């Protein structure tokens, strides 16, 4: 199976001279759950915008579905049909008058018929549980609601690669969890979800691959366990150990380590019983 993305030694420099990405290589396969972690300004958003051709690397190349991206208009359209990005600030993304119209924007651009657009919109609304908001104007919504509408707008395009830039930023724990459970529902063997977050506990629970970005380069790319035992790396990237991981390793849990609160509880029960 061909990987969705192969990034080979890409660098990106903003016009003002800031090196946002330095010699970065990354492969994104099918059906992956990747959490991208890195402190503010590490280059996460820049990396995401490389993936759908909004930004073009200064050096290096990006392969999408095995083909080198040429940044021609037609090809960009094809890429963007398959790669959906949910931006961090929903106000930057939502511009239509009301919720339904905004969700319909992407599917309409795909050239679908009115009926198909309608079906996609209804589906996305049902998936994100925003039925009660469907006819409201955007400025009536709270931040959490806007975030869900922004996700619905991208979902409605049914992208093969779903990219979310800090989907939980500014949300309380309840809504953050809700977004992750939504992501679990959206899993298919083909779809890859890539998200950036600061919440290491949520990343540890959800991801099957963690990528750590630091000053424009990748300093860790691998399973969600090894990273958290490398203290120097954690310190360098300003990361905190997930509490479940911390408790589990302190108590000497066997591998694979429990990743969720429930799994940790199960382990504690067997430990006390045994």
């Amino acid at each position, binding site marked *: 199976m061909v990987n969705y993305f192969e990034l080979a030694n890409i660098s990106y420099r903003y016009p003002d001279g800031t090196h946002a990405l330095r010699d970065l290589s990354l492969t994104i396969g099918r059906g992956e759950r990747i959490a991208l972690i890195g402190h503010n300004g590490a280059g996460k958003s820049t990396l995401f915008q490389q993936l759908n051709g909004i930004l073009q690397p200064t050096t290096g190349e990006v392969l999408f579905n095995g083909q080198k991206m040429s940044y021609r208009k037609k090809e960009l359209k094809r890429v963007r049909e398959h790669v959906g990005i949910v*931006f961090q600030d929903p*106000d930057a993304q939502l511009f239509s008058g009301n919720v339904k119209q905004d969700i319909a924007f*992407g599917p309409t651009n795909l*050239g679908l018929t009115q009926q198909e657009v309608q079906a996609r919109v209804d589906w996305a609304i049902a998936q994100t549980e925003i039925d009660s908001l469907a*006819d409201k104007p955007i*400025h009536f919504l709270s931040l959490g609601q806007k975030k869900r509408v922004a996700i619905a707008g991208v979902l409605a395009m049914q992208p093969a690669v779903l990219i979310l830039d800090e989907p939980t930023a500014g949300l309380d724990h309840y809504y953050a969890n809700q977004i992750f459970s939504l992501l679990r529902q959206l899993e298919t063997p083909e779809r890859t979800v890539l998200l950036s977050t600061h919440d290491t506990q949520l990343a540890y629970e959800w991801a099957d691959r963690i990528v750590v970005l630091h000053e424009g380069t990748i300093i860790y790319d691998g399973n969600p366990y090894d990273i958290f035992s490398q203290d120097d790396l954690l310190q360098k990237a300003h990361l905190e150990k997930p509490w479940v991981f911390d408790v589990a390793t302190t108590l000497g849990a066997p591998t694979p380590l429990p990743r969720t609160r429930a799994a940790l509880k199960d382990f504690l029960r067997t430990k006390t019983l045994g």
Partner: protein
Amino acid sequence: MLLIDKYAYINRLKDVHPMEKMVFTALLLLFSLTVRDQLISLITFIVMSAFIIFGAKIPWRYYVKLLLLPSFFLLTSLLAILVSFAGPTSALPPHIFALSFTRFQLFIGVASVAVAKQLFFVVLASISALYFLILTTSVQAICYVLYKWRIPPLFVELCEMTYRFIFIFLENTQKIYIAQQSRLGYQSPRQWLRSVGLLVSALFIEVLQRSTELTSAMLSRGYDPSNTTPLYFEEQWQFRKRNWLGIAVIFGAIVAVYVGGRQW
């Protein structure tokens, strides 16, 4: 959040087909503007106000407040129309009031009174008609009708975005203003001026940033600037024969009053 905008979504006539409301507004508004008749304008004002207060159930106190908003502009322009000046020796046209000073004469002409009266009534009618539309119909619904009326999609899209951006800027202005106030930015007139300057420049930067972000977001969702995709509107309203009949009867009656009044 603007109250006037909020009412557009919660009033009792929100489910009436926007086409009906717009046709009704347009007919009455255009007719009163064309004939410029005091009686017709007054009737238009009464009909529209009745629909706003009893039909849409907008609190009358709020409606009165809204009417007072443009009255400042109306009064100043009325004053400018009413009061005329002439040289100290020139003969005055027919007038109802005059004052002579050594260097000039000030007077209120009969003709200006007529113009001012006409203006007053026409403005009253127009304001009430527009308030009826604004208070009962959301901007999306208005855009939907404009789209159906084959107004270029570019223009309709622009309307919608402008509408959305008004709220983004209001929100940001408010946030910045509160932040400035909480750090004592508005204590003296000097500080006030400085803070307002900073606020405005911050908003300008915001515009640039927002538009770049928005373009990226739109491109990410498959937007092709060279190719206008049809706009998406959901048909959530239904035409009602009763409403069309009502519009025809009201408009017919107003025309009849006008024609009857002339012949008399």
